[in-house]
């Protein structure tokens, strides 16, 4: 549901299982959730999240079925509750939900009483993205780390740049990373980053000056401008690029050691230049790869934590 539902111990366990499952013989791994039924319910388009959840579930032997809003009775006006009850009646044991409304995963879980994995709900959260981002950061900054605690990321500053207001990835990361000791700097123009964002939790600050933020950060997380959520907001994209685009020269000048992350999809030439996206500091494709491992761990957790209401 939210990264706040996970204790630090839970997070450590998920990271550990992700590594174990990734290294396990695929034929052996295939038995873990053999023939268990998992529904992927997607109200928004998705490439990475949907595919990696699906591959993760299938890697563990589960049967998956995809229901997307454009090719189902959702188009005819069926409610989320009824869709969930229908999937349950069809034998789904867990539902992976991507939805355009914040809080949709809560609603689905309370109506179906099934474990629901939040694959992104509106502008609220995208918890597995934050977990895979964490795994990517640890691989670079704390290689060999087996467990996590409140100090694991002490001394690490992560900047999140761009459309914070509409970003569920930003929310999940800013609520997760400070719990492991990291400092989070939010960077962006006022229209996309209201002052009150700094009050979302501890360890969060706002720095509007992109270069100043870059010079303090070990991790640079770029976000896409979400045209579909701007709701009439007028934004001067040229000005945005001038102030906040991550370019090769800026990266070289202010953060030559930092790793560059982006949850995707990237818009080359807008928030990030092609050179940086493909450059040696970029860990964008590692993120994608880590997504499968993390999602294997959370799917397993949801279906095996018997009475624990598989939250993730």
């Amino acid at each position, binding site marked *: 549901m939210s990264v706040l539902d996970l204790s630090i111990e839970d997070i450590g366990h998920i990271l550990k299982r992700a590594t174990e499952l990734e290294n396990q013989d695929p034929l052996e791994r295939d038995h873990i959730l053999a023939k268990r039924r998992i529904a992927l319910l997607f109200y928004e388009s998705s490439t990475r999240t949907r595919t990696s959840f699906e591959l993760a579930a299938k890697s563990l032997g589960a049967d998956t079925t995809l229901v997307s809003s454009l090719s189902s009775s959702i188009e005819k006006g069926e*409610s*989320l*509750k009824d869709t969930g009850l229908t999937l349950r009646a069809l034998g789904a044991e867990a539902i992976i939900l991507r*939805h355009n*409304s*914040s*809080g*949709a995963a*809560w*609603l689905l879980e309370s*109506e179906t009483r099934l474990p629901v994995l939040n694959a992104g*709900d*509106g*502008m*609220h*959260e995208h918890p597995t993205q934050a977990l895979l981002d964490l795994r990517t950061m640890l691989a670079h900054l704390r290689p060999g780390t087996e467990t996590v605690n409140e100090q694991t990321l002490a001394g690490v500053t992560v900047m999140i740049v761009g459309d914070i*207001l509409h970003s*569920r990835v930003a*929310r999940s990361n800013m*609520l997760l990373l400070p719990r492991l000791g990291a400092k989070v700097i939010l960077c962006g123009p006022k229209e996309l980053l*209201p002052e*009150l*964002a700094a*009050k*979302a*939790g501890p360890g969060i600050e706002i720095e509007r000056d992109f270069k100043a933020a870059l010079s303090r950060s070990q991790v640079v997380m770029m976000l896409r401008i979400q045209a579909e959520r701007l*709701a*009439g907001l007028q934004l001067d994209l040229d000005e945005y690029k001038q102030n906040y685009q991550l370019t090769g020269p800026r990266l070289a000048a202010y953060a030559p050691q930092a790793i560059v992350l982006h949850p995707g999809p990237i818009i080359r030439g807008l928030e990030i230049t092609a050179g940086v996206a493909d450059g040696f500091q970029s860990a964008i494709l590692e993120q994608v790869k880590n997504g499968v491992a993390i999602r294997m761990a959370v799917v397993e957790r949801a279906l095996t934590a018997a009475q624990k209401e598989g939250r993730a």
Partner: protein
Amino acid sequence: MTALVIRGGQLLDPAAGVDAAKDLLIKDGRVAEIAAPGKLKSANGAEVIDATGLTVTPGLVDIHVHLREPGQGYKETIATGTACAAAGGFTAVAAMPNTKPVNDSVETTRWMLAPERGAQIRVYPVAAATRGSKGEAINDYAALKSAGAVAVSDDGLPILKDGVMREALAAASRVGLCVIQHAEDTRMTQGGCMNLGPASFKLGLRGMPAEAESSLVERDIRLVTELRDARTHLHVAHTSTAAALAAVRQARRNGLRVTCEVAPHHFLLTEDHVGFYNTNAKMCPPLRTAADRDAMIEGILDGVVDAIATDHAPHAVHEKEVEFENAPNGIIGLETSLGLALRWLHKEWKLPMGRVLSLLSAQPAALLGMKGRGTLAVGSFADVLIFDPKAEWTYNALETKSKSRNTPFDGWPMLGKVRWTISEGRIAYTNPA
């Protein structure tokens, strides 16, 4: 009509300045006689209600409810809404015009008042201030008033345009009606579904800023000032922000006829009650910050708030079982208003019971000019609430008389249990201990 005697109770009638053990005789729907216990002169043959140990007070008046008829009888009807009101101790309600169709006509106003609607208590329709509540062309207030409208409002929506609001205030003044404003600058609340602040940011919900309310209240007060007509009466519906209340307070100091109401949820709950997307904590205006909530309490205690009004807004269960941003605004409130007001305003914040009851009856009745209501003086309507002031109980939304049960107060402790509600001499609700 048979006569009715209410015997042995404590009569608490703030408007008449009475707080004493009295017996009441009711005849032909009116209060016929008030006397010391056992001293009624003409009580022979009357039906007797034993009110020993109970408080007898004017029936409650709610100047802001949504009865959903015409058009949305699946949420509530005039019959069920008024049955719910009677169960909450109310004997008169003002019904907002955002029905389907909008009540902007003499025909709809009369339709609502027809006996076939099965109202259990007195209903006062509030007519739309503008045609279709679209905020463009004002209606014929004189005609609506003579059909039975008690005020005009576009509630649910604001009257946004300066010129239209000025015209509405002026036209309403001429016929002696007040304009009830739903103060929400909708240009600032697009897509908003809760108060704008750290909580809305964290939940990923679009917020409604406090300024959307206060700026429109300030605009309206400026218009009242400019009109320079002592008859002009602006009433601010469901006040929810400290800034809006401060503006009302200042207007009153300046001698303007600007009144306001506050709903129980705005003096009891804050944005934190949205919790994890609880659609029963979604209403408009939204639950605000603790500072705003405290300002509402302060305003009630110091008297700037004229009335408690519930904004009773029923919605069917399936309409609230949806994504938070898609859920309709509003909660029911008629059965919890007295219990919450006594439990908190009286017991917790020590507001004398007479003042609590006055905020729930005499003051709202006077505010909208409901003659003969809000008091039990001889000759007034026999609208009586008899309740047990010491009874503590727990609200169970499943037992509601409303057709809907969208309330954040399910399971909340209440003080003061309604035993009888009498509407114009007729027992509209009874629940003897």
